[in-house]
């Protein structure tokens, strides 16, 4: 068994929320051995769904439906339906078995699916034989892209559930019959429910503030021409400038080193002035991205997806103790706080050419 998907059950009755568990069983013969390549006509996996009150209960039911017993030690992925995790406390309930049972591994990936989780399990990817392995390796691409966050595992979820801070989990979606990485689902820590999502540049902004960007690309407009810059190194420093119950002011210093990946104009990159112009353009662009993310998180979601709270927790503990209950819940001091952003950029290199020809050539 390599994957589990959990949806809300279609028929609800009684007080307890019923869920539907879909398990993905592998058919090893379909995978074949590397030399044989596996039977092309044979399916590599089969999905089984059953509904019930608890995951454990459904698993037992599933034993009646198949000749194979669910074997969780090779579980790779848990897909949770968006609909379900929007209900308060339900995430905690369904994850309990995956955290508690000794057969479960701590490294199982957790993703949120837009739409039904069951359908995600049903796709037939081209490059991998198993949908779950496909999603798994897709999530691991995060280091190449600033629009993706690091994978979240069961042990992270365990941590998130135990403290009351807000958190984010990767969000995937179906595009036609393909799976695509959408962004992140933002969870409110108090009730462990999903409050919204961040996609595209919003997520880049979030990653810049949380300091999770390692690599990625950013497009900036330099003198009217589009230029793609590759981030080589990004770091950020957060400081608490002033703190009061009414307003907390953070300052975020973002330092970015980038190189020129692609240009559509022509510049002489040996000239310092050219680089200065590019640096300035990049700086503006990043300002825009980050501020956009801040607005969305602070005003729209009103949930501390930046985890700025840990800054307070670590460096201003007495103050944190005072406001803990009202941080991003209750009075929601977070949404009233201010985040000042400063950006420093540096172009480290221009690639292996230092001059591009003017459009049309000479």
């Amino acid at each position: 068994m390599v994957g589990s998907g959990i949806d809300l059950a279609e028929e609800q009755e009684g007080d307890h929320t019923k869920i539907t568990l879909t398990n993905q069983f592998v058919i090893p013969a379909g995978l074949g051995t590397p030399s044989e390549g596996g039977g092309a006509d044979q399916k590599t996996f089969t999905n089984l769904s059953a509904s019930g009150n608890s995951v454990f209960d459904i698993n037992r039911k599933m034993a009646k439906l198949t000749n194979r017993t669910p074997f969780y030690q090779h579980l790779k992925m848990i897909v949770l339906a968006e609909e379900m995790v929007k209900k308060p406390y339900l995430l905690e309930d369904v994850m309990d078995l995956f955290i508690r049972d000794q057969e479960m591994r701590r490294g199982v990936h957790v993703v949120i699916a837009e739409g039904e989780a069951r359908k995600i399990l049903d796709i037939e990817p081209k490059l991998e034989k198993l949908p779950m392995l496909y999603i798994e390796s897709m999530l691991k691409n995060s280091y190449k892209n600033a629009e993706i966050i690091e994978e979240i595992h069961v042990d992270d979820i365990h941590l998130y559930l135990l403290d009351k801070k807000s958190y984010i989990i990767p969000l995937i979606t179906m595009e036609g019959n393909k799976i695509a990485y959408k962004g992140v689902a933002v969870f409110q820590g108090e009730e462990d429910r999903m409050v919204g999502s961040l996609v595209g540049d919003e997520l880049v902004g979030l990653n810049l503030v949380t300091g999770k960007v390692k690599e990625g690309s950013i497009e900036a407009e330099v003198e009217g021409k589009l230029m793609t810059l590759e981030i080589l190194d990004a770091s950020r420093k957060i400081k608490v400038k002033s703190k009061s119950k009414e307003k907390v002011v953070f300052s975020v210093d973002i330092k970015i080193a980038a190189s020129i990946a692609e240009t559509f104009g022509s510049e002489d990159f040996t000239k310092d002035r050219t680089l200065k112009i590019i640096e300035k353009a990049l700086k503006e662009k990043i300002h825009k991205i980050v501020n956009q993310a801040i607005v969305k998180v602070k005003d729209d979601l009103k949930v501390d997806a930046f985890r700025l709270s840990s800054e307070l927790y670590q460096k201003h503990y007495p103050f944190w103790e005072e406001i803990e209950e009202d941080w991003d819940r209750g009075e929601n001091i977070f949404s009233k706080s201010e985040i000042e952003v400063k950006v420093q950029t540096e172009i480290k290199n221009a690639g292996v050419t230092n001059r591009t020809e003017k459009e049309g050539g000479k």
Partner: protein
Amino acid sequence: MKERGDKMVRRSFFRRNKKNPSSNQKENFTIKLGNDLEKNLSNVKNMLDDAEDLIIRHFTSGSHKLAIVCLEGLVDKEFVQTHVIRNLQETNDDLSDPAQTLDVFFQKMISLTSIKYAQSLDDISYGLLSGNTVLYLNGIDQVLILGTSGGKTREIQEPVSESLIRGPRDGFVEDIQTNISLLRRYIRDPNLRFKSHEIGRRSKQKLVVAFMDGITDQDLVKEVNRRLETIDIDFAPESGFVEQWIEDSFLSPFPQFMNTERPDKVSAALMQGKIAILLNGTPFVLTAPTTLGDTLQSPEDYYERWSVSSLIRILRYLGVFISMFLPAFYIALVSYHQGMIPTKLAFSIAATREGVPFPSFVEAVLMGITMELLREAGARLPQSIGQTIGIVGGLVIGDAAVRAGIVSPIMVIVVALTAISSFTYPAYSVAIAFRMLRFAFMIAAALLGLYGIILLYIAIMIHIANLKSIGVPYSAPFSPTFIDDWKDLVIRAPITLLKNRPVTTQTRDKVRIKKENS
């Protein structure tokens, strides 16, 4: 009823045999010689029941009647002719007193290096059977025993059982004198001592304990000699008999003596303060005390440069672990701990095992036994046919078994890897021990998984910690820990750093390199 009748007959047969007085008579050879030549000769004839290979040659020297007696094939005939018979026939001295004559023969006439007087039939028989020639003189109750032993022995050849790429090419032969001389040639030290014993109540074989006086622990020598004296066996054709009689624990799977055909290995062992046991009639020399570390060393480790040797030794240790644990580990993983296999590998194992009807344990035992059969068959067959075994085993059985769905391809890899690893042991006797343990580990894995493997491993470790080879702990220098000896254990430090002899053997002279090299 009929069966009972048979038994009765058999029993009475044994009884008759026991009562037969003639069987005991032949062992009583303490008869003294008389003066009469003919009577003495007939005594010898009777003793050997007028054997076909008994040569009695009468001749005269002056006025004396003489006879020489020897056994064909054991003596060097040419030698007897030129140095004994011709000399005596050409003599002109004519003494009347037989005693004086014999003395003159002894002193002047016979040009041999080894010669002695004898009076009893016992001595004569031992002399004859050792290939010596007996000279009888009429009128005296004494004989001369002339050292003429010769005959055919094997040439010194390269040892077949232990081949090296680099190292001396000579090997021990069956003749103990040659073997002793080989050792003398390696170690030209007057302190190289040989203490001889005689074993075999009937075969009366020569056995020699070799050690370095001043290096070897005296208690060790005493203990070995004490044990050798307890041997009471009629015949010991190979040093394996001696080993099994004097070893510390006969229940242990591990050999407590190393056997080797290589004089360089024995002389190196002697220099490390060990003792060597040579037996006439076999090229295999025992060395002791032996530790677990010794069993995994090859003389070549010292001949190659240290970095190479160290890596090869590490490889050998790895080989031990692979050959002992791999099938068991496979069984444990596949039948108990599927979660420990990387997911993709788990899938492909599961895919290949899909059609296999047996549990992995049966599969492993099946392949393991096949492997052992092939190996045994290959070892017993003449070399020219032995080659085919490889083809039959490797191609036919391996490939066909997989195609027939009896075993999974992964199992074939496991068995093949195990077999290859087990060929890395430098000593055959150790390889057998680990091969046996492999099956024990497989059973443990089938019963309790990894837990079982660990339990058995602990049990074996306890056994090894308990085991001694003539009083020296088998697990030394791991435990008791002699850090100094670790320089020459898993790794082999540069020769110049191996300044001291191993602590394990408690040598009297501890220093190997006297000069300060710093």
